[in-house]
């Protein structure tokens, strides 16, 4: 509802994040209306009038205190409900990660993003890694992003995916998502990372799985060709 109207969510868990936000929104607005209504009503109804004395109510006896404690108990019930709803969502998003179909290493640095895919052999760090400026992922598959930073703390925030995770230098934090709708979405660094923080924009391109495979093969082929050209160039020089 509320965040959905601003920015539609496009991951498998965006619905449950939005659901928690909506739940809290409804409860919060409800409580606010009741309480604000009481303040206004009391202020108007019990304004100073000649000859009317205020009632001497201390709220010290349990009978009077119940007027406060019962609503408090009600608030507690709402709170626990929110916690229960939130706990599950949190487990889904940040708890045990589902097994990945695609793993991408994300390197953040002041003030840009680099996305690394494994080479043909499917392994990282074997000399065939593919480094890209945009994050391409297949729709409908679980993607792991291994988040690392070269310098300061950044944040991998994709509003449309409802995913936000700080990136700490010195640690590799793995986050996951499963995008449902093909399209191009923005990555915003959402942790103050220096004077040009505002410019640290990235792109997630969600492709249909076949398109993704085609893209990956093409990029790998281009890289192989470039590497071969480089090697021959080096040989030629030598």
């Amino acid at each position, binding site marked *: 509802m509320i965040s959905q109207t601003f920015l539609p969510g496009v991951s498998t868990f965006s619905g449950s994040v939005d659901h928690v936000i909506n739940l809290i929104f409804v409860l919060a607005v409800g409580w606010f209306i009741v309480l604000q209504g009481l303040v206004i009503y009391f202020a108007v109804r019990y304004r100073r009038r000649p000859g009317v004395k205020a009632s*001497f109510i*201390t709220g*010290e*006896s349990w009978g009077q205190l119940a007027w406060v404690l019962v609503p408090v108990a009600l608030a507690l019930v709402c709170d626990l409900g929110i916690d229960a709803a939130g706990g599950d969502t949190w487990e889904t998003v940040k708890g045990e990660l589902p097994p990945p179909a695609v793993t991408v290493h994300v390197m953040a640095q002041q003030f840009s993003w680099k996305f690394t895919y494994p080479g043909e052999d499917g392994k990282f760090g074997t000399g065939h890694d593919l480094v890209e400026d945009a994050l391409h992922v297949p729709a409908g598959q679980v993607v792991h992003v291994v988040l690392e930073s070269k310098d300061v703390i950044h944040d991998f925030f994709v509003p449309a995916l409802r995913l936000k995770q700080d990136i700490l230098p010195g640690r590799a934090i793995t986050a996951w998502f499963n995008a449902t709708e093909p399209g191009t979405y923005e990555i915003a660094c959402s942790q103050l990372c220096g004077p040009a923080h505002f410019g640290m924009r990235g792109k997630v391109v969600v492709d249909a799985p076949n398109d993704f495979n085609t893209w990956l093969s093409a990029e790998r082929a281009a890289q192989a060709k470039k590497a071969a050209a480089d090697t021959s160039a080096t040989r030629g020089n030598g």
Partner: protein
Amino acid sequence: MEADIAIHANAPAIETDSLVSLPASRVALWIFLAGEIMIFGGLVACFMLYRIAAGGWTDEASHVDWQVGTINTVVLLTSSLTMILALAAVRRNDQQAVKRFLAVTVALGIAFLGVKAFEYHGHIVEGFTPSKGMFWSFYYTMTGLHALHVTGGIVVNSILLIMAIKGTLWARGETRLEIAGLYWHFVDVVWILLFPLLYLSLEAK
């Protein structure tokens, strides 16, 4: 309703609680120490967390000399004894003894700093500066902060000693010695905890 009125409109004059009769300076000093415990506690907690994370720092830590540390601990423990004896002396109004014990306390405090400076010098000559590694960063930060507190204590005790010699101490001598003593013992307790943390828990067996 009637009970309410009885309590609120006709409340009997009652005495304030016993807390008002506590000496303000002692209360204030303990509150100050509570803040200090949080500062040193925070630092010690960080040290322990990092030490566990790094797996012990046994190599770096083997370069601190536990014998020198032990001597310094004895020095500081003894200075605590002389400080409390100075308080006992002021209570029996033995002014000569107060001056004697205060002088010894100050001397022991300076001796502690001297030994500490000797240690620092040795480490730095060997190349173990604060930026040499995490253990040394913590070593210098913790002992340095402690040494600053020792210095503060020496200053306070010296002022008391000068006042005692000039004869201006005695009007509120007991309170002053008590407060200075509380602080000095606290600095001692901090060292009692720092000593095993930095000097003793190092030998990997």
